[in-house]
């Protein structure tokens, strides 16, 4: 990442992701039709949401699989606010997620080492190492075997999801880890995993464990 991009992320007065954080902050206490807001149950986000994003994806007892933070927000909307779920990459969803993720900034990524998670982790690792698409490449071949080398002009990162949701300069806006993964998958000419699919949750579970202990820098800016 260039010094300019790093500087953009480090200074909140310049970080464009903070526009979404501000929106998320406003949505936090905005009541739904049934009168309930996030704040009705969770009170003050800087206290109640501290460290929460660093533990996702987390096991959901109802669906019996790990779910992403945005899926958790949607579950709250459905179960507590009688509101319809927001579609993947909806700006309000990204805003809420950014606001919650900000409360874990600087904290270590700490996925639950739950026994129920292990099979998903194992399958996620398999996805990561599986060669896919017409270009027949796996995540691992670039991100484990060749990080730091240049794919055309672009250095290959180590694929640690420390900053999601991110403001990606390429997107000129915010997006989720799922969107980013789908980009790579279409890049190798593979059919991407669907948003919120079990496969996606598995891959994200593996990536989170792989990044365990690294500091969260969400909401990050990436090229």
């Amino acid at each position, binding site marked *: 990442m260039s010094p300019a991009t790093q500087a953009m992320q480090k200074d909140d007065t310049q970080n464009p992701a903070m*526009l979404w954080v501000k929106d998320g902050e406003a949505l936090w206490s905005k009541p739904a039709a049934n009168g309930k807001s996030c704040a009705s149950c969770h009170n003050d986000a800087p206290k109640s949401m501290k460290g929460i994003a660093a533990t996702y994806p987390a096991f959901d007892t109802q669906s019996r699989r790990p779910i992403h933070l945005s899926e958790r927000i949607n579950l709250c909307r459905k179960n507590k606010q009688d509101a319809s779920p927001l579609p993947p990459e909806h700006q309000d969803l990204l805003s809420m997620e950014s606001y919650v993720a900000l409360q874990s900034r600087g904290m270590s990524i700490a996925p639950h080492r739950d026994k129920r998670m292990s099979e998903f982790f194992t399958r996620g690792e398999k996805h990561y190492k599986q060669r896919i698409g017409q270009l027949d490449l796996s995540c691992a071949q670039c991100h484990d075997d060749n990080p730091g080398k240049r794919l055309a002009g672009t250095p290959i990162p180590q694929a640690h999801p420390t900053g999601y949701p991110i403001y990606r300069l390429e997107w000129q806006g915010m997006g989720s880890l799922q969107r980013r993964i789908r980009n790579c998958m279409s890049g190798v000419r593979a059919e991407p995993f669907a948003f919120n699919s079990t496969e996606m949750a598995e891959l994200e579970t593996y990536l989170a464990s792989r990044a365990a202990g690294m500091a969260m820098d969400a909401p990050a800016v990436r090229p």
Partner: protein
Amino acid sequence: MARALITVPPNAKRGEVIEVRVLIQHPMETGYRPGSDGRILPRDLIRKFSCRYDDGKSNEIVFSAELYAAIAANPLISFHTVATGSGTLTFLWEGDNGFMQSEMAAIKVS
């Protein structure tokens, strides 16, 4: 309304040069870019920005800008002004499709 982030030092000494930073949510659609269907997306730009400083004695525009398609999405502008007196800074963005937004920030000058 678009979200805006305004950074102005809340306190300043009289005569001090302060930095003002404004960031606003806007796609700044260039009018040159094809959408997913291959057709060119219509232009949607913020065209003008101004900062008016009411310091109790005068109320005038201390900085203004004309923006074009080359300004990045969610535009950031940073500029300077002399803290002449306590009062308010009023920011105005205007653009295509009737876009108009105003924000204010207070400043205390001693």
